[in-house]
């Protein structure tokens, strides 16, 4: 008896998979290497599917917040999309801090959260929360999957939205019953979203105008930000700056976009930026902003900033960033890499005549500001200076390590005293300023770069927020070096209380600190306490020596409590109104 091949025959032989398996297959299609997560009731089916596959590795953290941070740092240090998986209810709410942190810094991530079964939604079920509602203001976009056939197209959209245009975290909420039903799997080959089409190519007329203004400028300045790093435009930026010989400054998020050790780099600008960077930013006549958003930490008092007349050119992929805080004269909407490439091609073709005399005079003025050496600090033979620890770390690691940071004074000193020559080496929470990220960030960076040196610069207050991750580091053998600048205070809060609240140190001290050496050893790591300035270099060399290259080393540096971060642009003041700490 012959059997004709009918469509129904084909359907019966094509395999069916559970929603959980389909979800995992989507991750395989997107070539995911790591999923950072923590199991729970709503995601049991998903975890069952993870157990039975081996294309990506699941990293079990000890708190969902750390899963988000680790996935975030995996993305920051590689440029790929970071993946996190959490359960419903408390799992999702624990993840919100990590999601908001990634959102503020525009980091591409796909966060999968379990949800109670579809029939239970809205009935106050066990571990139910309105994840889509709660995360709506702090994600680039989110989806609630209502049907098993939606899984593959939604996942494809999620990855696309996360990684394109201005990147950002995308959350996919998936109810438990959908992870159990069966369906065929087909991953969409193409994707069309009529409501989402980011502009990547800059307007050629605007680009020509920008180049003309920069060439004719008497005091040009280039201000770069996180967009250069996210847009992988470091090479194009370097070529651009060197062909025109322009001075440049970077925001906290853009460090490493242009080599900090090059003489054209004036260092970081802003509230704790260098004297020369802030003065040049204030006194320039033509300003080119590349992938930066004129944040309040950067420009200080907006009226003061605008009191000096200058022409401002702004290259940004997000049109809403342009003229949001400061009126822009020449806006260029586009991908930073693409626009800089166009600018470089134009420079090669037209060889624009620059105002060389004025430029030389301007560079001389900048050198005069630099010569004031307001970034220098004094050593002490009894107390460890935190700045000295950072400088020595830079020497010991040859300026080439992945440096993650928590938030506060130590973060600013890390940005000021560890010059970054490469992008994606400096990993910190700039926009949200989340304490606790340092250690999970180091985990993500170390997993992404198993052979690299990874150091977490932190404070004794910040490190306690996600200290449980020392266990994760032990489980996955992550030889991170934790550099704790222990001043027994929440340093940055104390500094503000000293300057603006007449030394009323309200709740900024750190009491009942653990013995960090014993704590590190309890987790199976190496602990060191350093109290003598003469021991700093030796301790760091030992931590980074071949003998300890497979061990996590927790270094508790007992530092000078009275140190403050300088220069500082106080709240409400302008960029040229810095307190330098060297006023006599």
């Amino acid at each position, binding site marked *: 008896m012959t059997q004709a091949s009918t469509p129904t025959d084909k359907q019966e032989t094509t395999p069916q998979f559970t929603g959980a398996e389909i979800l995992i297959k989507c991750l395989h299609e997107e070539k995911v290497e790591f999923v950072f997560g923590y199991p729970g009731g709503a995601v049991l089916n998903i975890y069952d599917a993870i157990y039975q596959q081996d294309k990506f590795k699941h990293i079990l953290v000890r708190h969902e917040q750390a899963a988000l941070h680790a996935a975030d740092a995996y993305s920051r240090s590689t440029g790929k999309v970071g993946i996190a998986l959490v359960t419903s209810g408390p799992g999702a709410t624990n993840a919100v801090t990590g999601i908001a942190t990634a959102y503020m810094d525009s980091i591409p991530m796909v966060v999968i959260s379990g949800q109670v079964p579809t029939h239970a939604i809205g009935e106050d079920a066990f571990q139910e929360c309105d994840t*889509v509602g709660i995360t*709506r*203001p702090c994600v680039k*976009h989110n989806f609630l999957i209502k049907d098993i056939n939606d899984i593959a197209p939604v996942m494809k959209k999620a990855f696309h939205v996360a990684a394109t245009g201005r990147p950002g975290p995308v959350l996919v909420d998936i109810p438990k019953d959908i992870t159990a039903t069966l369906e065929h799997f087909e991953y969409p080959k193409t994707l069309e*979203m009529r*409501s989402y089409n980011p502009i990547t190519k800059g307007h050629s007329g605007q680009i020509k105008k920008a180049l003309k203004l920069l060439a004719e400028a008497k005091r040009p300045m280039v201000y770069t930000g996180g967009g250069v790093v996210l847009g992988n435009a470091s090479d194009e930026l370097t070529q651009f700056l060197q062909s025109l010989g322009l001075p440049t400054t970077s925001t906290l998020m853009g460090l490493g976009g242009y080599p900090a050790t090059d003489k054209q780099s004036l260092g970081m600008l802003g509230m704790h930026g260098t004297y020369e960077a802030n003065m040049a930013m204030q006194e320039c006549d033509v300003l080119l902003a590349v992938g930066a958003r004129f944040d309040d930490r950067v420009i200080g008092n907006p009226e003061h900033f605008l009191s000096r007349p200058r022409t401002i050119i702004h290259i940004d992929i997000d*049109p*809403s960033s342009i*003229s949001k805080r400061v*009126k822009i004269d020449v806006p260029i909407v586009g991908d930073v890499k693409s626009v800089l490439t166009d600018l470089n091609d134009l420079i090669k073709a037209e060889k624009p005549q620059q105002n060389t005399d004025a430029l030389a005079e301007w560079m001389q003025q900048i050198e005069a500001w630099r010569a004031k050496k307001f970034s220098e600090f004094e050593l002490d033979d009894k107390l460890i200076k935190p700045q000295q620890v950072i400088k020595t770390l830079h020497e010991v690691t040859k300026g080439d390590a992945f440096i993650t940071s928590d938030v506060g004074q130590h973060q600013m000193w890390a940005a000021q005293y560890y010059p970054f020559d490469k992008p994606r080496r400096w990993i910190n929470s700039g926009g949200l300023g989340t304490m606790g990220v340092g250690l999970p960030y180091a985990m993500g960076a170390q997993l992404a770069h198993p052979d690299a040196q990874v150091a977490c610069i932190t404070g004794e207050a910040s490190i306690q927020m996600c200290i449980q991750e020392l266990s994760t580091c032990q489980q996955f053998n992550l030889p991170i070096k934790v550099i704790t600048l222990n001043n027994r205070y929440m340093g940055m809060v104390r500094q503000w209380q000293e300057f603006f609240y007449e030394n009323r140190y309200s709740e900024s001290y750190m009491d009942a600190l653990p013995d960090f050496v014993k704590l590190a050893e309890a987790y199976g790591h190496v602990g060191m306490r350093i109290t003598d300035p003469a021991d700093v270099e030796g301790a760091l060399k030992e931590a980074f020596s071949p003998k300890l290259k497979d061990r996590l080393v927790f270094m508790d540096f007992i530092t000078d409590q009275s140190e403050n971060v300088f220069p500082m642009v106080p709240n409400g003041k302008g960029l040229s109104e810095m307190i330098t700490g060297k006023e006599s």
Partner: protein
Amino acid sequence: MRHIISILMENEPGALSRVAGLFSARGYNIESLTVAATEDDTLSRMTIVTDGNDAVIEQIIKQLNKLIDVVKVLDLNDGKHIERELMLIKVKASSAHRDEMKRMCDIFRGRIIDVADNSFTIELTGSSNKLDAFIESLDNTAILETVRTGASGIGRGDRILKL
């Protein structure tokens, strides 16, 4: 300045929430908001009346365009447009006032759509200014209840908002 912004967006659950959330999170003012499906049932059209200077309105339009569900945004104030709003208003209409109320209704070209011993319900359409004027023209004590839809707008002639 008062602006009418028309938004074409994906007809997905939560799309309204996203727009409302955007306005409240960034402190933009919503004077009124109305939304319904279009002739294409995959698309909704929302009309928001808001207030702000040029810089604020520019940011609002940009932030709306940034939303993934939003397909197209049009500031109707950029060109010639027509604006209409519907109001249902229940007014006191006991013996002495009945004729007067009917006269007011006729003057404003409204229609009485419900009649009771002591009240009329009037349906009135027109620009928001016209509806404001009608309310102002009545004695405060005469108004029992008002329900307004908020303004909807459409461009004149060739100004068409579509995909």
